[in-house]
């Protein structure tokens, strides 16, 4: 056996092996009263955009892509979601202090304006989550109203 063959084989063994390590799922079906959509009056248009482009990583319910079932990709996604929720969790938005809510709205608007969110690595696989100029305008108009109000 050649060394390269051994390497390929052992990598294959590891790859198959890690498929059996159970992964967590961020998929609560309950919409809590602290949810952003309950805490705020959001237009239907804006709600759709928020849910399509933000909720996968920033709420307690993710609509998973098929490759979540493949490790280590799925594990990376989970880490990503955990970080995203720590930064901003729409499911718990209503529990934030009013100061934190206002700051979060401002930070959300800034991230959208700067084109930082949603992450390009996410929209690469989720083309429908990419914000069009129209989507951006809808969200920013609404956010601006909330920040001023």
């Amino acid at each position, binding site marked *: *056996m050649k*060394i390269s063959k*051994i*390497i390929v*084989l*052992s*990598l294959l*063994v*590891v790859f198959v092996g*890690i498929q059996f390590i159970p992964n967590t799922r961020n998929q609560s079906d309950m919409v809590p009263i602290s949810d952003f959509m309950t805490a705020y009056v959001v237009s239907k248009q804006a709600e759709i955009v928020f849910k399509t482009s933000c909720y996968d990583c920033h709420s307690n319910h993710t609509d998973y892509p098929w490759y979540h079932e493949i490790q*280590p990709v799925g594990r990376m996604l989970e880490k990503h979601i955990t970080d995203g929720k720590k930064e901003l969790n729409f499911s718990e938005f209503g529990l934030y*202090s*009013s*100061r*934190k809510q206002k*700051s979060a709205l*401002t*930070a959300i608007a*800034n991230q959208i*304006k*700067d084109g*930082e969110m949603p992450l390009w690595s996410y929209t690469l696989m989720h083309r429908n989550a990419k914000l069009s100029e129209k989507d951006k305008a809808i969200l920013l108009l609404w956010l601006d109203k909330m920040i001023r109000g």
Partner: protein
Amino acid sequence: MKTKQKTIGILLLSLVFTISFTACKDVKSTDSNEKMEHTEMQGDGHEHSSEEMTNNHAMQTTESAAIIDGYLQLKNALVADDGTGASKATEKLLTAFQNFDADRLTPAQQKEIADIIEDATTQAEHIVENADKIAHQREHFVLLSKDVIDFISLTGTDEKLYQDFCSMADDNKGAVWLSETKGIKNPYLGSKMLSCGTVQKEF
């Protein structure tokens, strides 16, 4: 020869396993290290307060002085367009927030202070992490400045401070900041327009 190949195979396998598992573990261990450091620091802060300060009021102003000091260092780094300096100053500010003891205040004020510190900490963390993105640091400095102004409105300050406002800051939405000098030096626009702003209020 065969046994040699076998050993190499086993070695390689275990290497791959170790790497893939330690990669996950590393993150956790740094986390707990950080926590350890924080608690040590907090411990330090308390020792100082019991040893050196018998007077409650003196303790309060010293602790808010550390917050003001960290904030002003951050502000001056942004004035100088220095993202790395801003990040470093904000680390001190974070420690100062952690050490702040609101015992002297009324329960209502304590709640307010807790909210302010929670929000300010979030803003500060972003500033620390984005040393290479000064525009992003400045976005969070808008929110942090509001927090620190509300903070000193509650706790008071021994230092003379000026609240400045520039209508062109934050994408022409206008933003406030605190300064230790009467002359305007704008932390949002830096060298682009150092003199934009007026004094709104004095503390």
